[in-house]
């Protein structure tokens, strides 16, 4: 796998992996009155402000093959450290705050009275979540996914520490660019990688816009 394909697969995997968690976290932050919310808020914001290298180091400490978590995962056949999964986990962790924030914002915009009306009509909390909250938060979920994907695509510091730079396995676009900086005649390859990065991001924005437009049209459409 070349680094562009690798970056795309890492980005997709990271986004899919964090999607349910991000929705759950956003719902917990916006739609419950739990006392644990401020703590969760801080924990979620942390990857956004910590230096990626620090994140990588902490992840490595957690997933190191000599540690309990790492060795168990290795035994299960899913080692994270110095593995494709490590790149996915790094991308997921750094993209997570953006994902949650985006969904949180769109959940906050939902009129809480709609959820109360839903309850008064006899819907359970779970039914209200799936039939009202989730569909109305859809634009936020989409833009959050796009942001998280793009953020994961550009992750360097955490990836290189947790996953290392293994060509074909963990050498994503930023890592490949870094490697090419040192190699003679690498400018052409770098140019391609830079172009690919820009193209992916532009496509990402366009796709996200199209989906949001479809959602808006659906809400306003006759049927």
């Amino acid at each position, binding site marked *: 796998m070349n680094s562009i394909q690798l970056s795309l697969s890492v980005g997709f995997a990271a986004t899919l992996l964090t999607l349910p968690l991000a929705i759950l976290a956003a719902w917990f932050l916006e739609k419950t009155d739990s006392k644990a919310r401020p703590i969760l808020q801080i924990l979620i914001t942390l990857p956004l402000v910590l230096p990626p290298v620090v994140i990588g180091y902490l992840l490595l400490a957690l997933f190191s093959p000599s540690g309990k978590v790492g060795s168990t995962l290795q035994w299960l056949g899913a080692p994270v450290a110095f593995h494709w999964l490590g790149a996915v986990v790094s991308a997921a962790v750094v993209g997570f705050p953006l994902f949650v924030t985006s969904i949180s914002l769109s959940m906050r915009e939902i*009129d809480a*009275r*709609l959820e*109360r*009306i*839903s*309850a*008064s*009509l*006899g*819907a359970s909390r779970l*039914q209200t979540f799936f*039939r*009202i909250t989730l*569909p*109305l938060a859809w634009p936020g979920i989409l833009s959050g996914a796009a942001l998280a994907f793009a953020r994961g695509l550009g992750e360097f510091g955490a990836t290189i520490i947790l996953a290392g730079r293994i060509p074909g396995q963990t050498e994503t676009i930023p890592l490949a660019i870094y490697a090419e900086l040192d190699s003679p005649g690498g400018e052409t390859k770098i140019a391609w990688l830079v172009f690919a990065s820009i193209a992916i991001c532009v496509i990402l924005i366009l796709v996200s816009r199209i989906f949001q437009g479809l959602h808006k049209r*659906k*809400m*306003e*459409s*006759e*049927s």
Partner: protein
Amino acid sequence: MILEIEANVSRPNGFHLIVEEKWSAHATGIAGPSGGGKTTLLNCITGSERGARVIVDGEDWSEWSMQERKIGYVTQDPLLFPHMTVKENLLYSPRASSIGPIAEMLRIDHLLERRPANLSGGEKRRVALGRAIASQPRLLVLDEPFTGLDEILRREAMSVLHSIKQWSGVPMILVSHLADEIVGLTDWTIRLENGSVSKRGPSESVLNETETRIDNYFSGIILEPGLVRCGPCDLKVILPHDADGPVRLACYANDILLSKKPPDEISARNVIPTKIKLIHGFEKITLVDLEAPSLRVLVTREANRDLDLVTGMSIYAIIKASSIVYLGPAEN
């Protein structure tokens, strides 16, 4: 429905609601100025404000949540689910089954596939009402459901509620600061002022002199432009030029005059000989129910005294063509 309520609610801003009431009514009105405690009392009944003792038909609701109370709640803001069609909104409640008759009754059966963004204000209110009724509530609670609609739409929505109230048989509580809504739609009214009940009684009796607009809703068939047959009599009405067939009409009770003798040379277009069916005398006003057409007329106490009105008496009802308002087409 017999409702018993004991509420004692204090707010940090000094507002205090103390209500201890027991009454029996199919439709109850909660009236009074804003800030009087109408919504707070309503929240006690729906269960969104806890701590009040609420007993409905001998059953203690006090510890029940809003869901357990099965209350159909309609507010001033229709709060339709924007991502769902009208049909999906109506069928939202897990208790909702057939919506056909409700949609027909509320005249929204042609809108079922639309989304809320494409509905007019009046249509949205009707859908919200339909959604509440489709959930098969034990009690329908309406918090200022017509506020913000223009005059004709408001009277139209009221006429629809009037008919659905009779059709569905669900007990109802209506909060309103407009007397015509309270009197037109409820039979018992509690008037709240400064957090306590200032008046209670049959809805008409709680009226102030200034709040005298009581609506009559009726329907008829257009015979020719400007002429509508309503039961035994033909009425001259100002109609939109495209109106045709069966129509729904409304006329305020205080827009109808009564005369013992047939007036001659009068500008009013409708002079109807009829009989007095019933007279309700209250502190400030008198309501006179006519036999045919079945209309309610509001006169002052003095007028009642001077004309010496009695039940069964022959009388002429005088209505200006322009006092009869066209609400819209009716079903055949």
